[in-house]
C-alpha cells in the first residue's frame, strides 16, 4: 500500500449566487409582498390584505406542519389529517360556547383564559384521537402508499360522520371573544385584531418548532429520521416511538389550527378539515415534503397570493394557488426546501 499524501482540505469561497441559492425561497415572501404593493394602488388596502394573507398563511402552516413531518419521517401519506382540523374546531368551539359568559365579557383576561382553555381542550382531544388514528388506521399500512391513501381517506369520512352524529349536521356559528373583535387602525388601514393574533400565534409555533428541531436531541432525531430512518435506528434510536410522538404533536397542532380557522371564519362544519386539505397539501408539496421551513414559506406564499389575487382579480383566486404550485414545482421539482432522502 502506498503512503497517503497529507490530506489538507480547504474551505472554498462560495460565489454570491451559491450563497444566495439556499435563501431564494425565503426571499419569495418579501418579493411577493413587494409585488403586491406595486399591484395594489392604495397602501391601506395593501396593508390590510398583507396582514390578512399572513394570518391565513400562519393558520395553514399550523395545520400543515404536522403532516409534512409525518410524511417525511415515515413516508406516511395521511389524507385523514383534515379530520384533526375538524375535531379541533368542534371541540374548541364547544368549549368556547360553554364558556359563553367569559367570551362575552369585555375583559381581555377572561377572553384569553376562555380561548386558552378551548385551545388546550382541542389540542388534547386531537392529540388523543391522533394517537388512536395512528394505532388503528395508519400502523397496519406502513410502507403501502395506495393503502395509506385509501384507508386514511376512509378514516376522514368516518370522523366527519362521527362529528355529524355528535354535533348534528348543521353548521355552527361562533362569535369571536369580545377582545378579539374589531380592528385597529394603522397607517390608514383597518387591521383585524384576530388576524394580528393569528400572525403572532403562527410565529410562536414556527419559532418553537424550529427550536425543538434545531436545538434539541429529539429534534435532531426527527430531522435525521426524515432523511434516513433506517440509519437512525442503527444508531440505537427507537424511531417508531418518535414517529408516534410526532404524529400526536402534528394532530394536536392541526387541532389548534382548526380552532383558529373556525374563529377566523366564525363558522364550523364537519367538512371544514377536508376542505382545508387542498391548501394543506399544496403547502406541504411546494415546501418540500418533510421540511418545516419549506412548509412555513409555502403557507405564507399561499395566504398572501390568495388575498392579493382575490382583491385584484376575484375569478383568478380559485386557480392562483394551483398556478403557484405548478410554477414552484417547475422551478424546484422537489419543492422549495427539499429534504435530502438517503434511503
Amino acid at each position, binding site marked *: *500500500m*502506498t*503512503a*497517503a*499524501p497529507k*490530506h489538507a*482540505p480547504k*474551505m472554498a469561497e462560495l460565489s454570491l449566487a451559491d450563497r444566495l441559492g439556499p435563501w431564494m425561497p425565503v426571499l419569495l415572501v418579501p418579493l411577493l409582498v413587494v409585488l403586491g404593493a406595486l399591484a395594489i394602488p392604495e397602501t391601506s388596502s395593501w396593508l390590510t390584505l398583507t396582514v390578512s394573507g399572513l394570518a391565513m398563511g400562519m393558520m395553514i402552516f399550523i395545520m400543515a406542519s404536522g403532516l409534512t413531518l409525518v410524511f417525511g419521517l415515515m413516508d406516511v401519506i395521511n389524507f385523514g389529517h383534515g379530520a384533526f382540523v375538524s375535531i379541533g374546531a368542534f371541540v374548541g368551539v364547544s368549549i368556547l360556547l360553554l364558556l359563553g359568559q367569559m367570551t362575552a365579557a369585555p375583559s381581555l383576561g377572561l377572553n384569553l383564559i376562555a380561548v386558552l382553555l378551548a385551545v388546550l381542550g382541542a389540542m388534547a382531544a386531537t392529540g388523543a384521537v391522533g394517537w388512536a388514528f395512528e394505532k388503528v388506521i395508519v400502523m397496519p399500512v406502513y410502507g403501502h402508499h395506495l393503502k395509506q391513501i385509501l384507508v386514511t381517506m376512509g378514516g376522514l369520512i368516518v370522523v366527519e360522520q362521527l362529528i355529524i352524529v355528535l354535533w348534528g349536521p348543521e353548521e355552527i356559528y361562533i362569535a369571536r371573544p369580545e377582545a378579539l373583535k374589531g380592528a385597529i387602525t394603522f397607517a390608514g388601514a383597518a387591521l383585524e385584531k384576530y388576524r394580528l393574533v393569528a400572525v403572532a400565534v403562527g410565529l410562536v409555533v414556527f419559532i418553537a418548532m424550529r427550536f425543538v428541531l434545531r436545538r434539541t*436531541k429529539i429534534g*435532531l*432525531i426527527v*430531522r*435525521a429520521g426524515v*432523511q*434516513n430512518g*433506517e*440509519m*437512525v*435506528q*442503527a*444508531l*440505537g*434510536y*427507537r*424511531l417508531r416511538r418518535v414517529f408516534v410522538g410526532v404524529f400526536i404533536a402534528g394532530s394536536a397542532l392541526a387541532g389548534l389550527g382548526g380552532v383558529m380557522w373556525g374563529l377566523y371564519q366564525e363558522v364550523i362544519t364537519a367538512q371544514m378539515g377536508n376542505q382545508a386539505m387542498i391548501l394543506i397539501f399544496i403547502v406541504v408539496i411546494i415546501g418540500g415534503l418533510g421540511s418545516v421551513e419549506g412548509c412555513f414559506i409555502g403557507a405564507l406564499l399561499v395566504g398572501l397570493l390568495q388575498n392579493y389575487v382575490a382583491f385584484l382579480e376575484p375569478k383568478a383566486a380559485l386557480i392562483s394557488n394551483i398556478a403557484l404550485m405548478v410554477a414552484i414545482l417547475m422551478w424546484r421539482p422537489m419543492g422549495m426546501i427539499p*429534504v*435530502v432522502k*438517503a434511503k
Partner: protein
Amino acid sequence: MSDPILKLEGVHTNIAQYHILQGVDLEVPRGAVTMLLGRNGVGKTTTLRSIIGHWRAHKGRILFDGEDITAKPTPAIARSGVGFVPENMGIFADLTVEENMVLAAASGPIDSARLDWVFSAFPPLKTFWKSEAGNLSGGQKQMLSIARAMIEERKLYLIDEPTKGLAPAIVSTMARALKDLKAQGASILLVEQNFAVARALGDTANVMDDGRMIWSGAMADLASNAALQEQLMGLSLETH
C-alpha cells in the same frame, strides 16, 4: 480461544421472493478483525444487515455476546453495543458533521478525548465540523460514516466496504483508522473488496458464495495462497 463476540448459526434471509442467505455460519472472535469476502452479490451486505436487524433472518440464530438477537429490533441491537457502517454510508446530508456525531453518541454527550482521537484519525472532520455533511466529498463522507461508529466504544463494529470507490490516498487513511481501532482491541466484522486492505487488516477471513460460507480460516493463510484465492473468489493477489 474465548467465546466469539458474534456467532451466526445457519442463518437464512429472504428479501422479497429472493432467498439470499442460505444457511450462513460465521464466528467473529473478540478483539480481532474478521474479514467477510466474496464476489459481488453473494450475500455479504445481507449478512451485515441481518445482524443489525434491518432484514430479518427467517431461520437460524444470531448470537451476540452470548445473547440471541435474531428477533431483536435494530435499535435494541445497536444499543447492546453494535456499531454499523453501511455500504451507502448512511450519513445525514442535511445535518452538519457535528450534528451527525452528536446523534451517533446515543448514550450521552460526546467524550472529548474520544473526539480528539477521531479527529486524529480523520482531520477533515474537524475542518468541516460545522459544515453540512451533504457538502463533503465522497471520501470525507466515508470518514464521517466510520467516525460515527468510532465516537462511542462498541463491542462490535460492522463495517461494509469502507474503501469502495475511494482514491488510494483516502483508502490509506481509512486503513490507518481501522488499524488504530483494531489496536484498541475492538472486534470488527469487515466486508471489503480491496484485497490489499483485507490482507493488511484481517486476522481471520470468511469467504461467501451464493449465500453460504464456503471457506473460513486465518487471513494469512488465504493471503499467502494465490490458488485458493483464485478458487474461492476468482482473484489472486498478483492482480491487486
